[in-house]
Structure formats: C-alpha cells, structure tokens
C-alpha cells in the first residue's frame, strides 16, 4: 500500500517539481555568500564589540595617556591588557561596551610580555578563547592574513561608544631582537608586524582578529618608535604567547602583585633593612616613585650580587614591586638572614639576581 503510494508519487511530475524546488532552496541557503566587498567588516565589528574594554587609570599629563584598551578572555570577567603606567593607579576603571563601569583589580602581570591580567566582578562576559586561538594558529604562518584591529586609540570612544576598528593585513611574523637596540623592547619572541597604523596612544591592549571575526590572533602592543629613524612600529603579540603568559599568571608561577594577600603572609621575627644589604634607593620625591637603586656600598651583600646604581627593582622574591612604597612593604616580610631573589631592569635588559 505505502509502496504503491510511493511509486505513484514518484511517477507524478509534481514530485520532481517539489524536489527540485527543495534542492534549489537548500542550495541557495548553503551557497557561500560573496564576502569580497560585502559587509563582512561591519558584521565582525558589531559582533565583537562586547568583548572589548576601555581601561582608565593613572596618567593624563605630559605624553602619558590615562587610558588603554583590553578585552575579556574568560566568562567570569578576566581581562587581558598590557602592563603600563596606566595600571599604576589606586583605581583602575573598566568601561564595557554597554557603557557600564567596573572597578578592576590586577590579578598579576608577566614582565616578559609586559601584559597584565585584570579582574572585574561580572559573570557571563563574552570573551576571546585564547586556548582555542593558540591551537588554531600553532605551526602556521599568518603572514598575509586580513585582520581587524579593535582598540580605543586616542581614547576617542567613551561610555557606550564602540571602540575603533581598523583593517589591514599581517605583514610578517618576526622577532624584533634583530633591532633590539633600535626599539625599546623586552620581549624576545615573535610578533606580528601589521600594515596599518594600529599602535597609537591608547591602543595598547587592543585585540587583533581575522577580518571575518572567526579567529583571535593577538594583542596590540605598546607604541614603539625606532630610536634612529623615528618610525613607529605597528605590531601585536601572538595569541599563543599570550595564552602561555596568561597560564603562567593564573597558575601563580608568574608573579602576583605585592598588594595581593599581604595580610596572610607570616612576618619574620626580624625584618630586613636595605642598609644591611648596602643598598640606597632614590629619594621618594613623588608618590609611587619607582624602585631605582641610587647607591651600592662596596663590599656589601648587594655589591657581591652585582647590583648597580640605576638598576630598577621589578621583583623582590618573585613579587612585583611597583614603587618604593611597595618595596618597603616587601622588606617587612623578608627575614634579615634569607637570600633574596631579584629581577632588575638594567637599561633595556632584564636580569635575574640573587643576593646571598
């Protein structure tokens, strides 16, 4: 019975008509849209805006901007951005794409890549999946890939306004080591060099994505000027390095800030004094003066460890010290007898030292 009905249907011309019509509809639905010259950039731009964060902190004088860019990397409000003097502030304010304001705390920083992780108390934030991006890009060259760069360059966007979007391509993937003397740059891994003027005041910490918005590629770096030609470099850190760095910070392997969790640490019976090391620091002229070494007494513990005047102390026993204030706090928690691990910045070089 059913079989008979089926055959009669198959024999009927209407069946073929409907079949062809269905085939046409399915095919026209599946057929890829022509993207060239289409509005793919607008779609990407509007789709990804809610992952971007405008970050405000210290600065606002001379040529120091008080703003930079960042983006969510987790659904629970984790924000990746560059580590810069902007974050050197009591209050870090994050403005989301809907205009809402959040106070952020620094979870940690990676001095190598010079990135910082911020956290705001908000759940279900849309985010870029670093792990996925790192995997997608591994072992491939992205050179020639069309990209969009999202950032709040020049602080143009405020409140709920969309951060700026620029289009270009990845020109090359290279190490800047060859010209390290020309660029004041610490990272020794590869970076993406871009063919658009993406790296402007405020754009550091912005996101680099493929122009179709399918893949996150990296984070826009700080402004970098060639010391001799004066040429500004437009570049981004690759997603895989960013991912490694974030993992290190989250695992506690990288350094947490001196501020975090200080109350729970045990205090030694007798704390260390800098004079005992033979170190003299620069005078504290302004609040949050960086921890620069001013003098080193000869034959002292510091001198034995080859600490020199003008060294900037970045880490004290693995903990970030952003100012003389924070250094003196760290001293409180340091036993006068224990050896000390130091990370210092000498010129453009980062050096690990241990004071016995």
């Amino acid at each position, binding site marked *: 019975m059913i079989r008979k009905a089926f055959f009669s249907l198959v024999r009927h011309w209407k069946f073929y008509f409907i079949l062809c019509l269905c085939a046409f509809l399915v095919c026209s639905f599946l057929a890829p849209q022509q993207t060239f010259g289409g509005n793919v950039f607008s779609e990407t731009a509007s789709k990804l805006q809610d992952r971007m964060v405008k970050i405000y902190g210290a600065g606002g004088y001379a040529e120091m901007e008080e703003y930079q860019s960042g983006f969510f990397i987790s659904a629970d409000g984790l924000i990746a951005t560059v580590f810069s003097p902007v974050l050197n502030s009591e209050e870090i304010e994050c403005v989301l794409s809907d205009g809402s304001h959040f106070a952020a705390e620094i979870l940690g920083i990676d001095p190598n890549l010079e990135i910082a992780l911020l956290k705001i108390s908000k759940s279900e934030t849309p985010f870029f999946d670093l792990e996925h991006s790192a995997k997608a890009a591994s072992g491939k060259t992205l050179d020639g890939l069309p990209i969009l760069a999202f950032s709040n360059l020049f602080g143009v966007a405020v409140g709920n306004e969309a951060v700026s979007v620029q289009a270009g391509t990845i020109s090359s993937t290279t190490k800047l080591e060859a010209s390290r003397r020309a660029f004041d740059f610490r990272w020794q891994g590869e970076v993406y060099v871009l063919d658009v*003027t993406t790296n402007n005041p405020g754009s550091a910490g912005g996101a680099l994505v493929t122009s179709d918005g*399918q893949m996150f590629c990296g984070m826009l770096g700080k402004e970098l000027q060639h010391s001799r030609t004066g040429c500004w470099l437009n570049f981004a850190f690759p997603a895989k390095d960013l991912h490694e760095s974030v993992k290190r910070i989250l695992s506690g392997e990288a350094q947490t800030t001196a501020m975090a969790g200080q109350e729970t640490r045990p205090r030694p019976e007798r704390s260390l004094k800098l004079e005992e090391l033979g170190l003299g620091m620069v005078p504290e002229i302004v609040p949050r003066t960086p921890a620069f070494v001013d003098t080193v007494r000869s034959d002292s513990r510091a001198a034995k460890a080859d600490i020199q005047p003008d060294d900037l102390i970045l880490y004290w026993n693995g903990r970030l010290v952003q100012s003389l204030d924070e250094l003196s706090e760290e001293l409180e928690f340091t036993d006068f007898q224990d050896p000390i691990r130091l990370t210092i910045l000498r010129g453009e070089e980062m050096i690990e030292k241990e004071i016995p």
Partner: protein
Amino acid sequence: MEKRVFRIFSIFFLLLAIWGIAPIFTVSEASSNPPVPSVNLKESADGENAATKNETGIAAHDEHTVKNEEESLPRKNSRAFHYLKEEERQQIDLLAQLTPSLVAIYPVDGSSCGSGVLISDDGFAVTNFHVVQPCGVWMKCGLADGCVYHAVVVGLDPVGDAALIRILPEVQAGRPNLEKSGENEAVFEETGEGKWVRRGFTPAKFGDSNQVRQGDRIWVLGNPFSFEEDFTPSVSSGIVSGTHRYQYPAETFLEYADCIQVDASVNPGNSGGPLFNAAGELIGINGRCSFEKRGRINVGAGYAISINQIRYFLSHLRSGRVVDHATLGATVSSDELGRPVVDEILEDSEAALRGLEIGDRILAFGGRSIQTVNEFKNVLGIFPKGWIVPIEFVRKIGSRVENHRITVRLSGVHSTPELQAFLKHTFGNDMADPNQKPGETPLKPEGNPLPNPPIPEDFRQMMELFKDLKKIPPEIAAVYESREGWVNFYFNRLETKRVWENLSSRSAFHENSSIFRGTNLGGQRFELEMTPEKTLLKQENMDILWENQGDFTRQSLPPESRLLLPGLTIWKEFCEKGPEAFEFTYFGESPLPFTSENSDTEETRMLFDVLEGNVGGVNTRFFFTKPTEPGKPSEIRQMELDILDGGLPWEFKFTRWHQTSQGFLPGKVEIFADGKIFECFQLETGGGK
C-alpha cells in the same frame, strides 16, 4: 499544458540548484584546509596581482600569458581569483566615476593646498573652512580634467569647519583632458582663441551618513601634499573605524560633532575632500586627524564631517554669510545612571518658554533617541542656528512620570559681532577689502584640523613678485559683493530673488484697499479692510482699528488684539513691496514648528525657504514652501514676529491657498501667541476691490 509549464520550471530550478551548489564544492575544498590560510593565501595574493595587471593594462605580458597563469592556479582558487578580478574591475569603474567631482583648491599665491568636492552641476563645491581660510575671497581650483578654474567663496561655517565655494566655468589654464576625467566631450564649449568654457560640472552623489556602520568600506579622494600636478586626485581606501564620534572644538570653533572616523590615509591636503562609501556616495568631508606626538601625518585615525550635517547647512551656506551652529540654551549632564538630564537652563531661552525644566530627562532630540550626554552633544552639533527640532523628555513629579514633546527653535552659539570678529581675525583683516593679506594669526585649535602643507620658500618668494595677481579678476568681481558682516552678499541676493520670484501670492492685495470676509475663531462673521493708512477689523461684537504709522515699535498695541493687526499689516506690506523694500535677506532652509495638529504629518519633515528682515522695527521671518517642481509657484506658509519684550514669537500660519478672482488667497489664517492659538480666520472672499 500546465504539466509542461511545471516541467520547464522544474528544469529551471534544477539548473539554478546546480549553479547554486557549485561554489560549495570549490569553497568547501578550500575550507577543508586549515582555517588559517598560509601557502594558499599567498597564491591568491599573486592572483590578485595578476588581476590588477590585467585590469589596468600595466601588464608586461599579454592577455594570453595571464590566462595561462590563471589556468595554472589550483581550481579551488579560481573562484576567489574571479571575485578579486570582479571586485577590482568594479573599484576601477567606481573611482573613474568619482574622480570628476574632485576639486584641488589653492590660494591665489599658491601658499597651501586643500581639496573639495563638487555638489551641483553649476559649480558649487563643499570644502573645509580651514582650506578656504588662507584663500580669502577667491581661489584657484584644479579639476580632474587637468584645467585650472577660478572659484569664489560663497558661505563659511567656522564652527563646523565647512565652506561653500562656487567654481566658475571658464578654463583659466590648461587644456581639457577628458580621457583623464572620463567625462563626455559635451561638457565643454570652445569659445574661440583656444578658450574653453564648461557647460556643467559633474557633482558627487549624496549618501545618507546616518546609514554608515562601523566596518563599512570607504574611499578617501583628495589632494594630499599637493601631489597632483595634473589635478588627478589621490585615492586611499579603508574602513569606517567609528561612527558618531565627537571631537572637541577649539573654544567654540572647529567642532566635529557626530563625525565619521576612518582608518584610510588622510594627510595634509586631504582637507575638504570627499569621503565616499562603497557605493560611491558622498558620506563625509574629511578634515581632521588625531596627531598628538606622531607628527602631522596620517596615524590611522581621520575624521570626516558627516554629509547629513553638511546637508542641513547647505542652504545656509548658500545665503552668503558666516553661519552659526545651534545651542539649546540649556546644558545637560549625566544622572547617576549615566542618562542625560537638564542641569541648567536659560530662563529666556525658547526651550524654557516652551516648558523644558531643570531635572527633565531627554529621551529624543532632533528625531534621534538620546541615551548619553555625548549623544546629545553629537546631535546638537549638527544643526544650524534657527533650526527647529522636536525634543522628547520625561519629568518625574513624585511617583508620577510625565512624557512631554515640544518643538524648539535653536538659538546661535555666537552673537553676530562674535562671528564677525572671528572672521576678521582668521579670514582676513576685513572681508570688505579682499586685496588685504589673509589673517596673520591662523587659528590654533585644541584638536587637529589637517594643516595645509608647507610650500618651499623660494616658490613663495617667486609668488611675492606676482602680488598684483591677487587683485580680483573681472569674472570674480561679477559674482562677489562685499557687505559688512557678510561673506559674499551676491549669493544672498540671488537666493532672495529666487524665493521672491517663486512667490505667487503677491497679487492678493490691492494698492488702495483690500477687503477680506469670513468667520473668525468664535465662529462670528468678520470683515478685514486694509489700506495703506490703516487696518480695520470689523466683528460682530467690536471693531478694532490699527493705524499704520511706519514704525511699529513706537505705537502702543491695542490691548485686546495686541500684534494681530500689526502682523497682518506686515504681511500685506511685504507682499506688496517685496523683500528689498525692507532689506529682507535669505536665511536658509528650516523645518516648521510642530503643533499638535501637524506633528505626524509630512509637513513636519518638509523644509521651507526662510527670508528674514525687519518691518517697522519688528524682526520678521517668512517661511516659503519649496516648489515641488520647477516653475511651480511657492506659497507663504508662515510668518513669525519677534515680540519686543522677549518671549515666544507670534506665528501666523497661512494654509489652503487657492486661486480666486481677486488673486491667490489663503483659505485659513491661524495666529498663535505664546505658543497658543490666538485667532483663526476662515477667509471666504477677499483681495482687491
């Protein structure tokens, strides 16, 4: 029969289906590769080059070799290759269409350069104020046809950094090269002795900048660094980086409100040039960049004045004056939720008189919904002084929330003397003396309008020798009229004449005596008699007499009818004697105030030509309908009288115009005082005796 038709359709759909599904195989093959193209991508990039060479004809090898290359490409790339070719073909065609509307602008001494764009076939072009500023009254313009033309300044908008110039059709130097501009031979006429005159210009097509979205592809055309010796514009491309951007002014001048941010290269000399969307429509005028420490060249953040703002100002610029931007007379700040709330208001501002109060939260302004203070500043910044906008707001009274909608005429940011002082300071010591050098102190705004590129010193010295050339040539003198406080009064005269000549209702009045009859607001019969000496209103309960003594401000007004009869007298005087008798000037276009009756009609979106002047000491504005088609007469739709002691102007609305044996008459005249209906005449008969 029917069966056959369906079969044919089946085959047709099947073919369509095959055609539709074909790309899936080609593309899915490509997408089965890793999502990140590496080698493939480079190949397609080569393909792109080949296509460019092929299209532009620069290719060293012939068509055949290109074909071979194409064949050697993997099949999966052939479709992408095809797209690129097609895309590039379209781009080249598009740019060829846009090029003839481009203008390169130079001061007569050649000391700087800028760009502009033609917006009408009779030679009007839009550019930046800061491009015209060093030029003074007239300038030299190069078009894509390779010729140099003279241009005269028409109107200036120093607040919005816009200017209108008119290019004159006579070729001053060069020989038309139509191959370059891609125009038809018919645009030129040879006048003998090797002289050429243009019959018309190729204007750009206007787009709608409110439709611009972040990520849209755009084209920047212009004259950066004065590269274009033959005036063929340079092209750069990019995307819209941001929309509705606000760039702060220098004090109160050069404010970029609601502007478009682009990542295409915008450099010195691009100022005043057009921003086109992917369809080749004009969506903005480039004029500003973020520079800070990078030096004054492209940094990937250029700003263009939105074309919708230019559109609002265009008729005002055509009036030949320095136009001003608008202010509400109230300031707005964020409440605790970041919403815009009125925090200060001038008591005598029209907004206050129409009912806006401190604490009111703005919902919509000028037809756009407002959520933040920045949005409010953006929208306010795009309107000219005198524009009439609707404002929607909510007021909280206890637990009750009231919604309000008012319409407000926006007042100017600056006083007229302020604007004139600014003009003298920046545009030249005196507009009336065009032979004087332009202002020595150029404006230094806090933001960064694009600088005009420097010109080599020796060139400048050479130009000094030709100082006499700065004297106004006769063809400029014919289209320039200096008048205190005006940029170029010649164009105001033209516009005033145009509006007046389109008016049909002049014949409604008779020289000696005109009588109108009908019913008034109370439904009673009335008779209105108007003679040169007096205006007499006879009604059933009382008669009112107004004697016309010439100066209306010295006479005491009849208490019961106040400005009613003086107003009707002004209407008659204007219609009889014309704008010149009372020095009426063209103000520009404006919408009309909304009333409860017309708030949702087409009328509220219409624009009217406005003439303003002073009759017998009373500031008067007339609103004229714009002829729907050329040759069709216009009507007076509204007359407004500013009352001397402040407060809202009196409004006389004239509707239902129709032809009678005595002339063209309004069927209905409504008079509003303090925003409320005061009198309404239904005219049945009337006119000359």
